[in-house]
């Protein structure tokens, strides 16, 4: 597997590979110049994602809080999120497809990172664009889902014929906030793919693909939690 090469490579570059893992943590942190053996952009993305994790955690905690303190019953997810296809009432079908698409996009992203480190520019660009395309289709389906909830079910952020008002409020706010993250990711991927194609990273190296990938995997991971808390609870 090509991925193993990259890991091997990393190990040989690491000066303290012989030391125990705990010792190497200590060595990194007591070193001069830098605390992590990575470009600053990657570390900055990690720290940003840590901060963003707090944003989503607080969104979800608030959602749990209003759900527990709501005075009207919460709507049943397998009824709200069901589609009727060819006369059959299928719960959670759309969201299953959406989740599958988003997780697939994480796969194409991981492949893009791998090809980037191999220096295969063409495949990297194609895989990043494929990832962006999958992300865009996720957004499209989300728009479809929102339309169905708003137009057919009559759910609004301020009102909900199927139960507690807070359902609409929390659902639109949190999936909307996540949707904005996915949209930003699609734009980010497209811009970076274009710049790679123009050869702007030929000298600097392709760390940028991994940095973009970190963001994209994070957005996918957040979706898993949103999915669990809104659709399975």
């Amino acid at each position, binding site marked *: 597997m090509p991925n193993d090469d990259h890991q091997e490579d990393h190990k040989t570059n690491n000066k303290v590979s012989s030391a125990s893992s705990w010792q190497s943590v200590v060595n990194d942190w007591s070193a001069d110049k*830098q605390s992590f053996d990575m470009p600053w952009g990657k570390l900055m993305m990690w720290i940003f994602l840590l*901060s963003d994790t707090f944003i989503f955690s607080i969104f979800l905690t608030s959602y749990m809080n209003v759900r527990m303190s709501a005075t009207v019953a919460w709507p049943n997810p397998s009824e709200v999120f069901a589609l009727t296809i060819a006369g059959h009432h299928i719960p959670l079908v759309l969201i299953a497809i959406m989740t599958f698409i988003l997780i697939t996009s994480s796969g194409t992203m991981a492949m893009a990172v791998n090809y980037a480190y191999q220096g295969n520019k063409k495949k990297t660009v194609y895989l990043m664009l494929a990832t962006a395309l999958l992300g865009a289709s996720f957004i499209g389906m989300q728009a479809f889902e929102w339309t169905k909830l708003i137009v057919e079910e009559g759910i609004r952020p*301020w009102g909900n014929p199927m139960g507690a008002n807070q359902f609409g409020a929390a659902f639109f706010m949190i999936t909307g906030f996540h949707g904005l993250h996915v949209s930003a990711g699609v734009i980010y991927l497209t811009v970076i793919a274009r710049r790679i194609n123009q050869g702007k990273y030929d000298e600097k190296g392709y760390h940028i693909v991994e940095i973009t990938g970190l963001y994209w995997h994070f957005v996918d991971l957040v979706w898993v939690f949103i999915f669990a808390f809104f659709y399975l609870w």
Partner: protein
Amino acid sequence: MTKMENVAIADQVDHSSHPSTFMGKYIWSQDHKVIAIQYSITAIAVGLVALVLSGMMRLQLGFPNEFSFIDPSSYLQFVTMHGMIMVIYLLTALLLGGFGNYLIPLMIGARDMVFPYLNMLSYWTYLLSVTVLISSFLVSGGPTGAGWTLYPPQAILSGTPGADAGILLMLLSLAIFIVAFTMGGLNYVTTILQARTNGMTLMRMPLTLWGIFVATILGLLAFPALLVSAIMMIFDKVIGTSFFMPAILSLGETLDHSGGSPILFQHLFWFFGHPEVYIVALPAFGMVSDVISIHARKNIFGYRMMVWAIIAIGGLSFVVWAHHMYVSGMNPYFGFFFATTTLIIAIPTALKVYNWLLTLWRGNIHLTVPMLFAIGFIFTFTHGGLTGLMLGNVVIDLPLSDTFFVVAHFHMVMGVSPIMVLFAAIYHWFPLLTGRFLNNKLGKFHFWGTFLGTYAIYLPMHYLGFLGVPRRYYAMGDTDFIPESAQSLNAGITVSAIIVGLVQVVFIINVIWSTFKGKKSGRNPWQATSLEWQTAQFPPGHGNWGKKIPQVHRWAYDYSVPNVKDDFIPQNVAPKDVEYLADEKNNNNPREK
């Protein structure tokens, strides 16, 4: 082709290009030093607005019904805007955006922040947030009068001043500020972690940087709570959701809201609000440590303990937030938990106070203006910290909550104390910016006026609190349990407050005058060891270091090392270059005499 090798920033070739136009140098500047000054000027300007607002509040409290331009609504608006501006737009911005920006690259030996463009955006976004905030003075209904805590439901209901546009502008401005802070904060943390110079390990950094570093991490993790609650409150206000709004009967009308949780907002607000106290306090702790050490010509006592105390305080600050909510009603076990964690914070904090005192002990204390402010800080901070211990206990907090005792407590601990350090820092680092000293006589006048004046303001307030005088009241009216003498005390406090306000005008004049006409300081006037004073060009130019970044050989506290010729050894002096006293018998180490 394989993965490109990662080269540490300190080992990279300097590609930085130097801007030549006025706009490039001073307006759209990406130089951390210029951005720091932009941040500082904006923060101080908006802080002066907040100072004037507090003067108006004091006029009303000291001499009720004398001033026709202050009505109950505008009084509440003054309270709210004063609090929010001081905490967020002055202290946070000046300590991190101002001092953080200026000192981080210089103290770690870097040429600039890792991402200068984002750093520039951070300032302009901050300026936008300030503009949005100030614009709320101009809209109909004026700024919000909900109190700086912005508790719903009242914050967004009619009846509260500024419930139409004011509260929205406030929430919007906060959201923009958080974006600005995040852009700056990512830079500060990443720069400290990845851009240090040769030999600069984390444990050789001056404590100023440790304070700024941990405070920035707190900010990146705490501001999300404020952002989320601002978003939810905007939705409650604008599109009628009910996150924070329960079923309410307002002015005889049943509102459309139902089922929301006002307590949720309080939890979110204080999950941000308590770390915010330490976002302000930790950089101040760090800077005061350095000022005390430099002006006492002695290494900081217990450097490692000081670092770990900063980290411990930072960690603990995330698990104490509900001590602001004892009167909101909570399970007694929660109260017990939060009271315990609150009191535990006193341990690392007291450790720091002892270490400052032990640094002074048998030091060669120079009573310069920065040192006076630093020693003043030890007084005000200990004072405010002790009343914090009282309020951390549930049974003491309940009767004192929402009285002037609380006002006195938090002004001493997070108002006056960080401001004392900020003044110490401004007097200390002013020569680095301008090559000139601030005027010494005016500085001493400024210190005594501020130090004695703030005590004249806040000591009596503790007493008012014990009497049960409530805070945020426009006027006491005929309240039986408050004796008339309380009013005389209030008048006295107001006179002191006006004097303290006027003393700050002297400071502003001093800064402006000294920038152009102050006494030339020469290079490294305080004989400090840390890197910011060791630049090739003085004051430091763009790129900070000229051709070669410095090599660090030691920690930042080599003061009065025995048998060494000078009483300080800069961090970039190699062991072989240290000049020792020729004759062992002439050594000036007092301990061996």
